[in-house]
């Protein structure tokens, strides 16, 4: 085939955001490698998700139809993609930078003995391929050359811009008239019992209720400067007045002042609120990679030279235990909250 094969994840009949990012990168790769973009989809609702892929430039979608592969089974999904590689000989296989994208492509790479380059931000096909990828969760970039018969790549999350207009509002929405329809190829890969040993056997629904950090428009973050679990009361109050959520640095979760699920950064959450208020946080690169997608950052810190100042748009120099309550009081005084 030459061209590019994309592992497309989907929910409720719509391709996931990170998979759409992979499709955008694949489109540009197909332009430089030659050939077309094809997709491979697993699970129920795959057929619905295909209907919108024409607008994303997908010529053919391979839909895996096998009850045993319906539930997520990383090794078996990887085996199915490896089989498709043999059948279609793509120049590259691309996945989004999701847990599953990274995992399934690592299985493909491991079982076929090929290199896998993860978290790619830019790529040009050729001999060798010229790639730029993230290290340190994006605090550092690596330029690399790849020599491989098939380039296996995952795309760094939230770097490639997707045209939200091409994303379908509803799964049932017909492809725009201009977009060519995607041909559907139903496949039944060989499945070995050993590849089904590790598979999803159960699900637990999310706890309903409080605003999640990844969805909040305003996040108030606390670091070592907060000083104690009790100290977070002042941050909770401000977040409450702003309809936001509270998060923190690793120092804070390691000390047990907050649960790990509140941690922002390389080994915690990536947030993208309209406003991030960083209180008593020094701005280590591993923290910044988790909050740099915020539209604006306001730092409250006693130290005007702390590295957070390089990432922040606004700052107040001072003790957060005085500044934060004063902000809450001022909001109340003006009749907010």
């Amino acid at each position, binding site marked *: 085939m030459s061209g590019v094969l994309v592992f497309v994840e989907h929910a409720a009949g719509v391709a996931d955001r990170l998979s759409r990012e992979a499709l955008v990168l694949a489109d540009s790769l197909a332009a430089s490698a030659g050939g077309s973009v094809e997709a491979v989809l697993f699970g129920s609702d795959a057929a619905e998700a295909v209907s919108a892929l024409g607008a994303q430039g997908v010529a053919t979608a391979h839909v895996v139809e096998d009850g045993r592969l319906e539930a997520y089974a990383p090794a078996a999904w990887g085996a199915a993609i490896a089989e498709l590689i043999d059948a279609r000989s793509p120049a590259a296989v691309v996945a989004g930078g*999701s*847990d599953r994208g990274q995992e399934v492509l690592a299985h493909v790479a491991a079982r076929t003995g090929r290199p896998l380059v993860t978290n790619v931000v830019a790529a040009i096909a050729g001999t060798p391929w010229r790639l730029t990828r993230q290290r340190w969760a994006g*605090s550092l970039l690596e330029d690399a050359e790849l020599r491989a018969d098939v380039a296996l790549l995952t795309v760094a999350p939230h770097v490639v811009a997707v045209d939200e207009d091409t994303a379908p509002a509803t799964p049932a929405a017909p492809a725009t008239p201009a977009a060519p329809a995607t041909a559907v190829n139903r496949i039944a890969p060989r499945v070995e019992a050993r590849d089904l040993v590790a598979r*999803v056997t159960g*699900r637990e629904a999310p706890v309903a209720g409080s605003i999640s950090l990844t969805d909040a428009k*305003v996040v108030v973050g606390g670091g070592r400067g907060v000083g104690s679990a009790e100290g977070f009361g002042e941050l909770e109050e401000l977040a409450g007045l702003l309809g936001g959520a509270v998060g923190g640095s690793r120092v804070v979760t390691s000390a047990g002042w907050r649960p790990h699920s509140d941690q922002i950064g390389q080994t915690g959450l990536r947030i993208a609120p309209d406003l991030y208020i960083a209180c008593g946080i020094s701005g*280590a690169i591993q923290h910044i990679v988790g909050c740099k997608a915020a539209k604006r950052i306001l730092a409250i810190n006693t130290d005007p030279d702390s590295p957070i100042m390089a990432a922040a748009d606004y700052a107040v120099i001072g003790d957060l235990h005085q500044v934060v309550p004063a902000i809450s009081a*001022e*909001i109340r005084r003006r009749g907010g909250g």
Partner: protein
Amino acid sequence: MEILVCVKRVPSTGGRIVLTPDGQEIDTRYLGFTVSPHEECAVEEAVRIVEGQGGSSAVLTLGPIAAEEQLRDAMAVGIDRAILLETDGREFDPIATSAAIVETVRAQEAARGPFDLILFGNEAADTGDFQVGIRVAVALDRPVVTGIKSLALRDGAAFARREAAGGGWETYDVPLPAVVSVKEGLNLPRYPSVPGRLRAKRKEVERVQPAWSQNGSVKVGLRLPEEDGARVEILGRGPEAASSVVDLLVRIGVIAS
């Protein structure tokens, strides 16, 4: 339970990264070293499992001789023994790293019997390749689950949970022996005690010389991402700044005027 944990020595970069003049490495002259928080949780989990169910634990790293420091850190919190796959400082790619780990696992198991569980971090802190654990598992033909934030071993199986994409959890149960890669949040690692540190200092570290190879992807150089260059606007000092902060909140539409 016989458990092996794999950890990687990485620099503790702080506020900003400085590269060497040739752009090939991070300038580590003024930096300390550590392992990924994911791997600290893997170490803690191994110690807890052995405390609870008996058996023994080992820690392995592939790195320069200085990486003994990270092995001793792990032994200081209760890992029983350590294996260093000693390199000459050259970077091993994920294929070479996993091949070296697989060879060592085979040799260890031939000499002492099988590991029930091999623990990895979900991804290394520096290169973030997201694949060494899976490559090792596939080569050893063992089941592997990744991104795990809760783990229980009973009846010869591992019950593991990971966060699902849309929220909530998905669960896996795999028979032992198995490979599990974990994320921070799995547990809250303990700090080493002084006696723990002293004990770790006296312990032997087993040494292996792994073979270096280069397999497809070759680093050309490193560079820092471009910064937006915007300068921070200081709104004020101390509690007196509250009024300008609220003006800002109104201006950017976070609160109604």
